């Protein structure tokens, strides 16, 4: 083999590796690192549009302080986003795991059912769901419609029934959010070797026990991926109010500095949540480490 540029095999290997990923690294600086740095800089400044571009005056942490003290809307919005996230993500995880188990069984028409279950991935992401939400079709009044209400109101007192049905409807939103997660769980379930189940069966494990002793430990990594994905998704999806609020501040009021500061507070909050998730799962992952 000819030597190029007088490099050793190892040197050439490294160079080739870098050239494959170089595209990404350049992109990272252009579209991630520099904007991120700039947005941090903006958040510490007051920005004004003038003829020769943006003029910045340093104001220190004023914007950050303002977000927590003088802004009446921001903190409550953060709280609602957090509560929505905390209630919805566990539900999404449970539901998607349940669905994946259902769809992974040997059933007739599995392909059709899978197709239907992934339908939300195709139509529910982003704008369309938002549209539906505004229309109220997508209040999805499947449970909370009049027929069911009147039929059940004889059995269950109204003041319990009403929130119950509303909760059931919010569950449908959860279902609509869990398409990708179902996909990931199914892919994970496929990697579990059948011989493990055979072994469990020989040792006299019931299906219930086999789930907790075999299936569950094997899909902890997918659970981790799904938790991360669900959290990131719930923080950034189209109908997130904090995002709307920040964008409104930036583009309607031209308040670039304050908008960036709120963006950073929001990001730090997400980072804390993700760090907690990492810490929880590290223990779980360590337990299943060393599997194939």
């Amino acid at each position, binding site marked *: 083999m000819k030597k190029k540029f007088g490099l050793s095999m190892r040197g050439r290997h490294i160079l080739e590796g870098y050239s494959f990923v170089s595209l990404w690294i350049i992109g990272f600086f252009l579209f991630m690192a520099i904007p991120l740095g700039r947005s941090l800089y903006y958040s510490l400044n007051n920005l004004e549009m003038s003829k020769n571009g943006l003029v910045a005056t340093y104001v220190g942490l004023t914007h950050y302080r303002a977000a927590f003290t003088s802004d009446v809307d921001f903190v409550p919005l953060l709280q609602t986003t957090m509560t929505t996230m905390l209630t919805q993500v566990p539900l999404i995880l449970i539901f998607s795991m349940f669905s994946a188990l259902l769809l992974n069984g040997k059933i007739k028409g599995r392909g059709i059912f899978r197709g239907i279950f992934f339908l939300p991935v195709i139509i529910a992401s982003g704008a369309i769901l938002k549209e539906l939400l505004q229309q109220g079709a997508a209040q999805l009044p499947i449970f909370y419609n009049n027929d069911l209400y009147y039929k059940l109101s004889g059995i269950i007192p109204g003041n319990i029934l009403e929130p119950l049905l509303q909760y059931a409807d919010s569950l449908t939103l959860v279902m609509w959010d869990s398409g990708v997660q179902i996909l990931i769980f199914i892919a994970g379930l496929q*990697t579990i070797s059948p011989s493990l189940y055979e072994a469990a069966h020989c040792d006299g494990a019931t299906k219930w026990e086999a789930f907790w002793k075999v299936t569950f430990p094997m899909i902890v990594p997918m659970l981790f991926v799904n938790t991360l994905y669900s959290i990131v998704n719930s923080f950034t999806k189209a109908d997130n109010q904090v995002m709307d609020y920040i964008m409104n501040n*930036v583009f309607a009021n031209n308040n670039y500095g304050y908008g960036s500061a709120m963006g950073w507070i929001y990001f730090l909050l997400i980072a804390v949540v993700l760090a907690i998730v990492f810490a929880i799962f590290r223990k779980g992952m360590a337990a299943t480490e060393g599997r194939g």
Partner: protein
Amino acid sequence: METVKINRAAEYREKADAVWKVSWVKRGRSIIGSAIYYLVLLSLSFVFMYPLLYMISKSLMRPQDVADATIRWVPKMFSLQNYKEAMVALDFWHGLLNSVIISFGSAILQVLSCSLIGYGFARYRFPGQGIFLALVVFTFLIPPQTIVVPLFIFFLDLGWVNTHLPFVVPALMGHGLKGALFVLIFIQFYRRLPNVLEEAARIDGAGAMRTYWGIMFPMAKPAMLVVFLFSVVWHWNDLFEPNMYLLVPEYFNLAQSMAFFNGNANLNVQQAAASVSVASDALGMAPTLQNQIMAGVMLTIAPILLMYLFTQRYFVESVERTGIAGE
């Protein structure tokens, strides 16, 4: 002797009966079990289908149907009038063209670039690899909204606003909408491929690029399909980035036109309600307008829905083979 024989025969019959009974109980149980199984599947499927069915039904209804209390799902007059009106309001063909350029263009570029990058990460060892890999994950976790202001100003300075470049160029570099996720999918896929083919190609004297392009890339079809489909769908439905970078109706994609149409409709309703008390339905909107909007939403999602119908089977298979879940 006789009695013993008879007794024994009776005993056998009883035993046989017992076995027979047990098997029936078992079979009955499994029938009930699978009945419940399918019932759960079907009812969940209904919930997933419901909004789609609802939209189709509403979009076909004319004012007469809406007024008719006996009609819930199937309109008496089967009419595509709403669709015709929605097509005009959406400027459908124009929006479709923009949507196709943005989502298919970005998707193809993302498949090409993310595959290249994923291959580099999966098959090479170089200093700083761990850090760069961590940065890929980091990129995935950052909400795009955090960096949108500087990015917008950056594109504005370059004169890229109101062009397709803010979508295409990041996609070319393995960034753009969820680019990091796609890189991770490819990394995961290439890691699972055996070394043998590559080594054989290298021994035969193929260079790095040739090995990749000729041998490894064609093998990544399952990963390509998954990334391509996700990328198309997410770009198609995305409203945030188009709203940032495409500010003139001429460049609107379908999702934007739809949002615009809907916003206008809502505004009209508000104005109308302010001046006269119009008879509007429970949703606060004139019935026909609401049906037009439903038709509009259907038109907006129809192209990707069709695409999904055709690729659905391969899609699910591919996901299983990609090892999306391995990370």
